[in-house]
């Protein structure tokens, strides 16, 4: 039905320590400067992603997850943004590419889908036009070839009656179809890395699960790497191979989906899981994470989660804890986490009893 093949693997060879890593981010820091204040949106993020792997970045508002992902495509306004650190996708050094090279990469090697298809799709052009245009620009083929590809792509993303839909405008389609159209545009040039910024948050549950199933299927077929930003743990469980949990611009827990979601060790991850509403007893109040996330304009020293953490001690306020990893690649940044018996564990013995017991 289509000519999708796995992308050319010769693009993968990168000059990184781990030969298999397709995406390598090291010590990424992103600051937004204005006259009034400097917002420290991302404060030292490092991770690696293999080819064909799906990483889900989980975090709440203000965690820096969207900012971090958009940095990979250099989508921030140059004037106000200061980025330091290292970012590599395949053989491309994102920190050093020119704007021209970057615009070549966008849409072809690295592609992105967004939360609101209505704003991501141009309302003045038909779906077919938009997909064909991307194909024509990046692969330098003529209009007929572009439209043929557009039809294939709509079939790939399971849009019913694709010939008719090609000629439709975005506002004529339902939310789910628009989201699929946006996915078709993003996949039109066979990207090796797909970035997704909460693409299913605005969708109904029944459509959300269709889109997630579709995305995983396409990702497997095309061998794409994928970075998926979400605040919904259920979404992460559905599609992630690896999960990164972000708080105040840092990854505070990282690992295989099963390790992080079923055996979380960082207090924030645990609190997030227990405060997510799923079959809790109705008669009791829900567990919550007390307080509010820190102001990124005035980040205090030490662990950013400490002010809201039940187990915080003075050592947590002194400095941000270093990452600690076990053999399985499960990492957490918490002063009370250590590796015991080869596995990452939250160490009860390290948490001292409190003199001021406030239970949530």
């Amino acid at each position: 039905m289509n000519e999708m093949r796995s992308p050319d693997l010769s693009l993968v060879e990168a000059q990184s320590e781990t030969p298999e890593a397709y995406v390598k981010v090291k010590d990424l820091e992103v600051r937004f400067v204005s006259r009034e204040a400097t917002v420290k949106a991302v404060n030292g993020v490092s991770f690696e992603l293999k080819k064909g792997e799906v990483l889900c970045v989980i975090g709440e508002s203000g965690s820096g997850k969207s900012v971090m992902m958009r940095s990979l495509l250099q989508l921030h306004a140059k004037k106000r943004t200061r980025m330091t650190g290292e970012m590599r996708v395949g053989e491309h050094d994102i920190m050093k590419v020119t704007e021209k090279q970057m615009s070549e990469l966008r849409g072809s090697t690295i592609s992105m889908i967004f939360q609101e298809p209505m704003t991501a799709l141009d309302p003045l052009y038909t779906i077919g036009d938009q997909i064909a245009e991307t194909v024509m620009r990046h692969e330098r083929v003529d209009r007929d070839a572009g439209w043929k590809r557009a039809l294939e792509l709509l079939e790939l993303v399971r849009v019913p009656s694709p010939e008719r839909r090609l000629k439709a405008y975005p506002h004529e389609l339902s939310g789910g179809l628009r989201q699929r159209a946006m996915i078709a545009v993003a996949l039109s040039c066979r990207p090796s890395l797909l970035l997704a910024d909460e693409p299913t948050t605005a969708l109904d549950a029944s459509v959300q699960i269709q889109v997630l199933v579709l995305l995983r299927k396409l990702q497997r077929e095309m061998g794409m790497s994928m970075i998926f930003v979400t605040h919904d743990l259920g979404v992460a469980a559905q599609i992630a191979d690896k999960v990164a949990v972000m708080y105040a611009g840092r990854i505070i827990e990282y690992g295989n989906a099963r390790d992080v979601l079923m055996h979380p060790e960082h207090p924030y991850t645990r609190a997030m899981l227990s405060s997510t509403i799923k079959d809790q007893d109705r008669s009791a109040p829900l567990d919550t994470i007390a307080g509010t996330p820190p102001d990124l304009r005035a980040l205090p020293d030490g662990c950013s989660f400490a002010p809201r953490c039940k187990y915080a001690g003075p050592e947590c306020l002194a400095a941000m804890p270093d990452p600690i990893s076990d053999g399985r690649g499960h990492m957490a940044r918490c002063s009370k986490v250590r590796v015991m018996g080869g596995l990452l564990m939250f160490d009860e013995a390290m948490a001292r009893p409190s003199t001021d017991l406030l239970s949530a």
Partner: protein
Amino acid sequence: MTDVIETTGSSPDPRATDTRDRGGPAQPMLIVENIKKYFPIRAGLLNKKVAEVKAVDDISFYVLKGETLGIVGESGCGKSTLARLLMYLIDKDEGHLILDGDPVGEKTGTSLDGLRRSLQMVFQDSYSSLNPRLPIENSIAYGPKVQGATAKSAKEQARALLEKVGLKADRFGQRYPHELSGGQKQRVNIARALALDPRLLILDEAVSALDKSVEAQVLNLLGELKEQLNLTYIFISHDLHVVKYISDRVLVMYLGQVVEIGPVDKIYENPLHPYTQALLACRLSMDPDERVDSAPLAGDPPNPVNPPSGCRFHTRCPFAEEVCMSKAPSLGDALRADASEHLAACHMVHAGSGHSKAPNPDTRQLPLWQQGEMR
């Protein structure tokens, strides 16, 4: 105010002393009878009506005092339109509202003004739910001022309400909406809704836009307020987990109609309508080992402009048969049924409907699928 539940051991039961109560505990707080709203679609030079969006099509239900009725449905089901109809923000085409025994808007009974004082709405936290040019104190004080309070007393009320919803009045009173986080704005929305001392709150996707941990905080707050102020809630949401936690009874809407209604545990453990079953199957597990490979419900929620004939769900229903295409199933008498009854608008539930899986009217046997066998 923290997220801690205060023990109410010594304070009197608010329900017993509510002076606003007129009908007594057995009288439903709100009875909605045969509500209909069709939106015309006009086209052509003379703006003639060419089609209708059957947004809300003959809906009836009641809400008991002190309960939380959850309303679930997807886009296009009409739940937001229903909320606005109940609030009289848009005019209904047909139907009646009875508030605590008094008909609304008719010659006898409660006036529109009276409705406003009893029934308020908490909107979804969006950029448009609060006036961006007013400090939040003023937004909250507006309602009381409109109803006759002096500026000073309205402001005091507003500040007291801010404290009640967990925001320090000194710190937050003069702030503008854009300075607040999503959860904080929602607390302000709740405070604004409470400013007129209502008895029934309609919460239209009130926590849907919030982060999960903030959602939990706000839900706890709503629970506390319900106890303290003797409130009744209608909780509209598309999030099935939240509806399960907060509701006593649940109403499921599809394409402008009620397809299922009943106590929350019965609906979640034994959904009768195939749509409800599919919807519940779309909930995502947090266990990566429980991933699904195929979606339980195919296609998109259809457009309410030209709903399918007969049962509106038959085009997507795995159990659809001839009778489903020709005859629309009835929910049953939702107004006369007891609150503990579980009703569904499906031919498979009603004996003698003509569906192969319907129970046999003679033997009174439960159909196989209703005995716990679900998709």
